[in-house]
């Protein structure tokens, strides 16, 4: 689930009064981007963070008590000195704007409306007036949604894009931690296997969907698009070949196959024999995952999840320190 929806749901379940703080504008290089949220509960408990710690979060906490006590929503415009900027990752002095408001029933209701669309796989946006008359007023936008969240003048546009999907073919030992890692990093997860003893809710309680059946048919039924990562960990040619063929017929940005280089070459040859072009075959990542070392199911899953995240963000997965 989207982090914002998840945090709102937690607070709703806990029946807590809370303040919602949203990072609406940054100048300079920041570790977190526009749209990041922090919630401060009435007992001072904190969920999320608008930066990754440091003075900005502290200032939000300072203002939260007043907002909870009944003050109007407010825009905190923070000019940062070099020292403060360094603390939150800016390379030199910059500015961040954080909009702080009470988490009202009205606010929750509009996020609920946005979530219905988001759950259905549609990208939506919420506009928020940041200051002056009507500060805090929101509107749901379903058409002509911009690519990213940003502030335009006095209006913050929060883009809520449906999560990427991780399709996992094979319900073996690697898939269990892989679902956990994928969920934690914001993926919708679907596990497919032909064997009910492998693909079931006891083994995959956190998966969004668990499907048992003819995997190649399920692969054709599922929507696979530019936000879908396809991982094959069945380690079985009868699954790998037809599912890869289907995946290569889509614009899935990540297609990974568990197996050695030798096994991978054999599977690719079978696809070649079935008429799949070389241009398509180079999209298959085999052996799957980043070179993290380790050979336990969790370590392999982490290696796969890391590569998936890197590819979905257009990165290589190389160490930041080596860059």
């Amino acid at each position: 689930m989207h982090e914002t929806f998840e945090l709102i749901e937690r607070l709703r379940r806990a029946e807590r009064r809370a303040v919602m703080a949203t990072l609406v504008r940054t100048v300079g290089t920041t570790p977190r981007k526009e749209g990041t949220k922090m919630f401060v509960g009435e007992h001072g408990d904190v969920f999320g963070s608008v930066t990754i710690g440091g003075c900005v979060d502290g200032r939000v906490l300072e203002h939260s008590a007043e907002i909870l006590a009944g003050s109007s929503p407010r825009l905190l415009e923070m000019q940062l000195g070099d020292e403060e900027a360094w603390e939150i990752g800016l390379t030199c002095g910059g500015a961040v704007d954080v909009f702080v408001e009470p988490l009202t029933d009205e606010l929750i209701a509009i996020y609920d409306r946005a979530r219905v669309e988001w759950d259905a796989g549609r990208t939506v946006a919420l506009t928020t007036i940041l200051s002056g008359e009507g500060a805090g007023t929101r509107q749901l936008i379903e058409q002509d949604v911009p690519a990213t969240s940003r502030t335009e003048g006095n209006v913050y546009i929060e883009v809520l894009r449906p999560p990427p999907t991780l399709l996992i073919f094979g319900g073996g030992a690697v898939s269990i931690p892989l679902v956990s890692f994928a969920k934690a990093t914001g993926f919708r997860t679907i596990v497919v296997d032909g064997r009910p003893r492998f693909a079931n809710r006891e083994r995959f309680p956190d998966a969004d969907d668990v499907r048992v059946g003819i995997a190649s048919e399920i692969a054709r039924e599922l929507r696979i698009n530019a936000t879908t990562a396809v991982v094959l960990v069945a380690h079985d040619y009868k699954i790998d070949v037809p599912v890869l063929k289907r995946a290569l017929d889509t614009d899935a940005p990540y297609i990974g196959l568990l197996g050695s280089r030798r096994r991978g070459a054999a599977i690719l040859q079978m696809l070649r024999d079935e008429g799949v072009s070389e241009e398509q075959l180079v999209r298959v990542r085999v052996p799957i995952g980043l070179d993290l070392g380790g050979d336990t199911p969790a370590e392999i899953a982490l290696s796969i999840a890391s590569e998936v995240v890197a590819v979905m963000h257009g990165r290589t997965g190389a160490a930041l320190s080596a860059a």
Partner: protein
Amino acid sequence: MSNASPYGEVIQEHFRHPRNYGSLDAPDVRHEGFNPFCGDRVRIELSVEANAITAARFAGDLCMIAKAASSLLTGMLEGLSLDEVATVDERRLLDAMQTEIRPARMQCVRLPLETLKTGVEMWRNR
């Protein structure tokens, strides 16, 4: 896998070019079976008129032997009465495969056969 099959030419041919692969528009019999260990999964579909099979199809994610067995099996069914389905047995399938199958892989041969017979029985008892 692109070179000669260890199971002989008939199995390789039916694996690479399976007969009757696909689905029927409105099958009378439709049953899915699977091997809980290896994950082979097959669906057999039949059209039945006047107690006789007029068309047979199969689909699934199957190993080389199971796919060849399904292909050969469905090729034997057209024109058979439902009673005659009982006469199609392992031996007949193995003869059609023209090769020896190790005991450990016999379940690959049996899977489509058992799926067919269960499907027919369920349809008759519907």
